[in-house]
C-alpha cells in the first residue's frame, strides 16, 4: 500500500503542475462551446468524441465544473432563444411542424451534449446538487421556447383549434398532435396539465354544453343518447390517439357531466321518446344505451330505476284494478305473466341483469299484485285452468316453465294462506272429477310449494293424492271380493276421502235409486269390514255418473251427469212427467242443489234432456218436468254440467274469506304463544312486530286481529298484563 501511495502522489503532483496555465479553463471551455455550437448546427460529425469527453473530464477534475456548467446553461439558452425566434416566425399552419422539428433537433443535440459532458453529469452534478444535463435541457426548452410570449398562447390556441376542427368532422394531422402532446408530457406532467389539459377541459366543457343544448332541442331521447355515446367514444379514441392517457377519465367526466348529468331528468321524461315509451315499445337498444350512459353519472341509474318502478306500478295497478280486465282470471294472470316476461327481458337484454333493477321489478309486482284481494284466487284458478286443459299439447319442460312462473307470482303474494285455501278447493274438484291431465305436473307444483313454504303448507294436499291412490286399490279389492254378484248392475266407483284433508262440507243424505243404494250398502260393509273403527259419510254432492239413455228413433246417448242429476233422471225411467214437488220428495235433494241440477237438465240449450212446463229460465216449485224424447246431439257422449260459476260468487267469496280468517286465528295464537314462551315478558308493539314477522311467509296478519287474539289468550290464562307496565304482557307457564 505504501508503494501505491507513492505512485499516486507522483502522478497527482504531475497533473496539478500541468494546470498552471491560467487560461487553461477558458481555452478548454472554448473548445467545448464550439462543439456545442457545431452540435446544434448538426455538424457533430466533424468532432472528436474522445477529445471533447477528455476536455470536459479535465475541467471537472481541475475544479472548473462550475464554469463548465454555467457555460453550458448560457450556450444552450442562447441557442434556444434562436430556436424560439424561428418557431415564432413560422407561418400559420407550419407552426406546429416547425416546433416539432426543432424539438426533435434539440432532443438529439441534448443527447449528444450529455454524452460529452457525461463525466460532469456523473460526478460534479450530484455532489453540487445541480440539475442533470438532460433535465436541464428540458427545463431550458420549457422556459425559452414553450413559455416564450409569442409561443405559449399560440401553441395552446393551435392545439385547441385543431381539436375543435376534428370535433366538427375535419381530418387533422394526428401524428403531429401526438408528437407535440408528447413533448408537453416529457417536459413534466405539470407542463402538460397547465399548458394544455386544463384549458382543453374548459373549452371542451363549453363545447359540449352548447352542443348538448342544441341536440336536446331537436332530437328525441334515443337519438340524443346515440349522439352522446358517439361523442364519448370519440373522446376516448382521441385520448388513445394523441393525448396522455391520464386525460381519459377527465375528458370523459366532462362529456358525462355536460351531455348526460345536466340533462338527465329531461331525457328520461322526454315526451313520446323518453324512458316510458322505450319501455312500452321494448326498444332494447335505446334502453341499453341509456343504461350504459346513465351508469356513468351520479344518481343516473337511480333516476332510470325510479321512473321504471313508478311506470310498472302504474300499469300494474291498472291491470289488477280495471274491472274489465279482472273478469277472466286466466287472462288476468296471463297478462301479469306477460308483463313480468317483458320486464325480465328488458332487464336482461338492456340493463345488464342489474340486481337493483331486478329488485325494483320484484317490489313493484309485490306492490300491485296485492292491491287486488282476489289475486290468490285468480292465480289458483289459472293453475286450475292450465292443469285441466291448458297443458294438453305441451312438453314437460314447458309445463315446468309455466309452473315456475306461477310460483314467481305466488312469491309476491302476501296472503299465501288464501291461495292455499283456493288451491285446495280447485285441486279437490280436479281430482274428484278426474279432470287433472298430468299427475306429474300436479306433483311438481306441490313440490315447488313445499320448497317455498315448507312441509306444513302442502301436507294436506299430498294427503289428497294419497286418498286417490288408496281409493283405487280399495275399489279393486271391493270388486274382487264381490265376484259375479255385482256383474250386471251399475258400476260403482267410491273415493274414500280423509276428513280434514279435503274441503268438504256436511251433506244431508238423499235417496239414491234402489240398485245404487244396495251397492253402496255392500261397499260400506266391505270397507268397514277391512277398516275397523272408521266411519263413512257419503258426499253425494261431489259425485258424477255416466248413464245411458235411449231417445226418439232409438237414438242412444251416454250422459255424463252429477250424482244428483242421476237421481233425478232415473226417476223418469218409471214416469214421463213429474212435478217439482214429486221429484223433491222422491230424492230428498236439498232445495238449492235440486234447483240448480234441474236447471242444468232442462234449461241449457243443447243439453236439455228434460222439458219444463212452463218454459222459462228459472225453476219454480210449481214447475213440472217431462222426459224430452226429441233430444238430439251430434255427439254420442253428452256432458251435462251443473250450472255453477267457475269463479266464486260474491257470497261464496265472503264465505271463503271468513273461513280463511277463522283458520288464521289459531295460527296467530300459536305464534303469540311461541314468542311469549321464549321472551317471557314483552311489550305490546314488539309482540305485534314479531308476530307479523313470523307469519309473513303465509299471510299479512292484521294488528287488530293480533290484539284480539292476545286478549283471548289473556282470558284463557296463557298471558297476563304486567302489573307495573300495562303495555307489557307476561307469559304464564
Amino acid at each position, binding site marked *: 500500500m505504501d508503494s501505491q501511495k507513492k505512485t*499516486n502522489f507522483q502522478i497527482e503532483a504531475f497533473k496539478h503542475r500541468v494546470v498552471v496555465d491560467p487560461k487553461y479553463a477558458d481555452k478548454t471551455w472554448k473548445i467545448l462551446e464550439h462543439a456545442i455550437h457545431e452540435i446544434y448546427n448538426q455538424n457533430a460529425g466533424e468532432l472528436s468524441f474522445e477529445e471533447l469527453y477528455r476536455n470536459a473530464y479535465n475541467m471537472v477534475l481541475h475544479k472548473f465544473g462550475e464554469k463548465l456548467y454555467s457555460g453550458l446553461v448560457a450556450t444552450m439558452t442562447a441557442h434556444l432563444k434562436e430556436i424560439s425566434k424561428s418557431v415564432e416566425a413560422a407561418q400559420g399552419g407550419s407552426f406546429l411542424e416547425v416546433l416539432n422539428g426543432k424539438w426533435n433537433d434539440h432532443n438529439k443535440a441534448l443527447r449528444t451534449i450529455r454524452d460529452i459532458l457525461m463525466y460532469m453529469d456523473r460526478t460534479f452534478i*450530484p455532489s453540487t446538487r445541480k440539475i442533470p444535463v438532460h433535465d436541464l435541457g428540458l427545463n431550458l426548452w420549457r422556459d425559452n421556447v414553450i413559455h416564450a410570449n409569442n409561443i405559449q398562447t399560440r401553441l395552446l390556441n393551435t392545439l385547441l383549434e385543431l381539436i375543435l376542427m376534428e370535433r366538427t368532422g375535419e381530418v387533422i394531422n394526428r401524428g403531429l398532435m401526438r408528437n407535440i402532446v408528447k413533448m408537453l408530457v416529457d417536459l413534466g406532467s405539470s407542463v402538460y396539465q397547465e399548458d394544455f389539459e386544463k384549458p382543453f377541459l374548459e373549452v371542451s366543457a363549453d363545447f359540449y354544453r352548447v352542443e348538448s343544448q342544441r341536440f336536446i332541442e331537436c332530437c328525441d331521447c334515443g337519438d340524443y343518447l346515440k349522439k352522446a355515446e358517439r361523442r364519448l367514444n370519440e373522446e376516448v379514441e382521441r385520448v388513445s390517439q394523441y393525448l396522455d392517457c391520464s386525460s381519459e377519465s377527465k375528458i370523459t367526466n366532462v362529456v358525462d357531466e355536460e351531455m348526460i348529468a345536466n340533462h338527465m331528468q329531461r331525457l328520461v321524461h322526454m315526451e313520446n321518446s323518453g324512458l316510458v315509451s322505450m319501455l312500452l315499445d321494448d326498444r332494447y337498444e335505446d334502453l341499453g344505451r341509456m343504461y350504459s350512459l346513465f351508469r356513468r353519472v351520479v344518481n343516473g341509474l337511480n333516476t332510470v330505476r325510479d321512473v321504471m318502478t313508478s311506470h310498472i306500478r302504474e300499469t300494474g295497478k291498472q291491470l289488477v284494478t280495471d274491472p274489465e280486465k279482472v273478469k277472466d282470471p286466466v287472462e288476468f294472470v296471463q297478462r301479469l305473466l306477460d308483463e313480468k316476461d317483458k320486464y325480465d327481458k328488458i332487464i336482461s337484454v338492456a340493463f345488464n341483469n342489474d340486481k337493483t333493477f331486478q329488485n325494483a321489478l320484484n317490489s313493484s309486482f309485490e306492490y300491485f299484485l296485492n292491491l287486488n284481494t282476489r289475486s290468490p284466487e285468480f292465480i289458483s284458478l289459472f293453475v286450475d285452468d292450465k292443469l285441466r286443459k291448458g297443458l294438453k299439447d305441451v312438453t314437460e319442460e314447458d309445463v315446468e316453465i309455466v309452473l315456475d312462473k306461477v310460483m314467481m307470482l305466488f312469491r309476491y303474494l302476501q296472503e299465501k294462506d288464501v291461495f292455499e285455501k283456493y288451491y285446495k278447493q280447485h285441486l279437490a274438484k280436479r281430482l274428484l272429477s278426474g279432470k287433472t291431465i298430468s299427475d306429474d305436473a300436479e306433483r311438481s307444483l306441490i313440490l315447488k310449494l313445499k320448497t317455498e313454504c315448507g312441509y306444513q303448507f302442502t301436507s294436506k294436499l299430498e294427503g289428497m293424492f294419497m286418498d286417490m291412490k288408496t281409493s283405487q286399490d280399495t275399489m279393486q279389492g271391493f270388486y274382487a271380493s264381490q265376484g259375479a254378484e255385482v256383474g250386471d248392475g251399475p258400476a260403482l266407483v267410491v273415493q274414500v276421502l280423509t276428513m280434514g284433508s279435503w274441503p268438504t262440507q256436511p251433506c244431508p243424505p238423499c235417496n239414491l235409486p234402489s240398485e245404487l243404494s244396495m251397492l253402496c250398502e255392500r261397499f260400506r260393509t266391505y270397507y268397514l269390514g277391512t277398516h275397523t273403527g272408521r266411519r263413512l259419510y257419503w258426499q253425494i254432492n261431489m259425485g258424477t255418473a255416466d248413464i245411458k239413455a235411449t231417445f226418439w228413433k232409438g237414438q242412444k246417448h251416454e250422459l255424463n251427469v252429477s250424482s244428483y242429476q242421476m237421481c233425478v233422471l232415473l226417476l223418469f225411467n218409471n214416469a214421463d212427467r213429474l212435478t217439482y214437488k214429486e221429484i223433491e220428495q222422491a230424492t230428498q235433494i236439498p232445495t238449492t242443489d235440486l234447483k240448480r241440477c234441474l236447471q242444468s237438465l232442462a234449461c241449457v240449450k243443447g243439453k236439455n234432456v228434460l222439458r219444463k212446463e212452463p218454459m222459462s229460465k228459472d225453476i219454480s216449485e210449481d214447475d213440472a218436468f217431462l222426459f224430452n224424447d226429441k233430444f238430439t246431439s251430434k255427439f254420442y257422449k253428452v256432458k251435462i254440467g251443473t250450472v255453477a260459476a267457475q269463479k266464486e260468487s260474491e257470497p261464496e267469496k265472503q264465505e271463503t274469506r271468513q273461513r280463511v280468517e277463522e283458520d288464521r286465528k289459531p295460527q296467530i295464537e300459536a305464534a303469540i304463544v311461541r314468542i311469549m314462551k321464549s321472551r317471557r315478558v314483552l311489550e305490546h308493539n314488539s309482540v305485534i312486530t314479531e308476530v307479523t314477522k313470523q307469519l309473513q311467509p303465509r299471510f299479512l296478519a292484521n294488528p287488530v286481529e293480533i290484539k284480539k287474539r292476545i286478549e283471548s289468550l289473556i282470558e284463557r290464562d296463557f298471558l297476563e298484563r304486567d302489573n307495573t307496565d300495562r303495555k307489557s304482557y307476561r307469559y304464564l307457564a
Partner: protein
Amino acid sequence: MKDRIRFNVGGKIFETTSTTLANAGRDTFFGAMFDDDWNLYSNYSGEYFIDRNPNCFGVLLDLLRTGELCIPPNVSEKLLYREAQFYGLTDHVRAAKWGPIDGNRLSLSRSIAGRAPGDGTAIRGGPDGGCCVAHGCMVHVYDWILDEHPPITLDYQIVNDVGWIDPENIVVSACERLGRGDGGMGLFNAENGELRHKFQISHENQIKSFTAGALSFSSSDSHIFSSCKGRSNEYGIGVWDSVTGKQIDFFYEPIGWSLGDADKLQWLNGSSCLLVATLFPRKDNCYISLLDLRVKRMVWSWSDIGAPVTVDGRRVRDAIAMEENGSICVVNEYEDLGFMDLRGSVGGGVRWSSRSRSRLMKGKMPDYEPCYPKLALHNGQLFSSMNDCISVFCGPDWMLTSRFRRSDGGSICDFSIGGDRLFALHSEENVFDVWETPPSQITL
C-alpha cells in the same frame, strides 16, 4: 469480423468487439461513443485514439470481458480507480471487488486506524461503499477506496449522530453548547467537508437553538428526521426536507414520553412511520414508539415503566423494527434478543429468546471495557454487536448462524452496513474494520 474494434490507447493498440464494450452499458464512455445518436465515427474503419493510460485500459477491458478484476503488480490500484472513474466504470469495479452483503460469508477487507483520541461515537456506511466516523466533535469521511477526505466539524460542537443522504452528502447533528445558542444540524459535502446548509427549527416564527440527537432519513420523499431538545418546550421530533433544507414539521413529545432525547430513530418505508427509541441509561426507563407524522399520532408504544425489574437489572439497550415480520427486535446488555409484536397499538411484553442467554452464561466477561450491544437488519439478516464480535441471526426463528471478530480491536462501540459493506468501529484503539462479501467467482 464485422464488430471488431481497434483502440489506440496512449500509443498501445487494443482490439476488442462491440459485444464486449456493450457490457459497459449506455451511461459510460463506451456507451456514449458507440451509441447511434453519436455519429462521430459512423464511417470510420481505422483505430480509435484515446489519450489515457494503456495499462489501466487493459485491466478495465479485461473487466468488461470477464467481469473480474485482476490488477497486475505494475498497475497502481488508485490510478486504476481514477481511470475507471474516467470511463464511467466505477460501478463495474466495485461490483467486481465485493458482492451483495451476506452475514454468513463476510471477510475482513481492511482495517483503518484513526487518529482521533477518545471513544468513537458512531460509524455510518455510505451508499457507495464509503463511510464516516464521528469522534467527539469531528467526523472523518472516507470514500469507497477508503481514502480520507477533509474532516467535517460543525463549529467543533460535540457530534451526536451522522448519516448519509446520498453518496455526496452527509448530515451531522450536534449538541448545543451551553450559553452559546448554537447546536443543530448541518448538511456537508462529503468530498470536501464544506458546510452546505444548516437546518433550523422555528418555533412560533422564531428561530430557536437546539440540540439534535438521533437521525433518520426517508429516501422516498427525501425527509430528514431528528430528535430535538430545545431550551423551552421544543422537545420532540423535527422533520426537514433534504432538498429544500426547510423545516416541514415538528412532532412535540407527549407529556411523560421522552422523544427529544431519543437514542435511535428508524424510518419505516412500508408503514410510513418513524420508530423512536429512548433507552437506558439516557433515561431511567426505556420508551419505544411508532409515530405516524401524517396524522400526528403515536400509533404504537411500549415502555418498561412498571415492568418487574429482573435480578440482574437487564435493560433494553437497542431496538430495531422489522417491518416484514411485524415485530420489533430489542437487545439487552447480555446480548439476549427479545421480540415485540408491532400489530395492535400497544406493545405487550418482550419475548426474550433464551438461546442467546444460555450461551452467554457460559462465556466469561471480557477483560476490556464492554460496550452496549447494537442491532442492524439487512436483507432479512439480523446483526448484533457485542463486545468485540458481531453475530448474525437468520431465518424465521432468528438462529445464530455466524459470528466474526477481529483479534485486536477491543470492544465494538458501533457498526453500520452501507454500500454492501459492514463497518465496525472499535472504541479503544480507534480502529474501524471493513467487512465485505467476496463477489461470486467465475468457475474455471
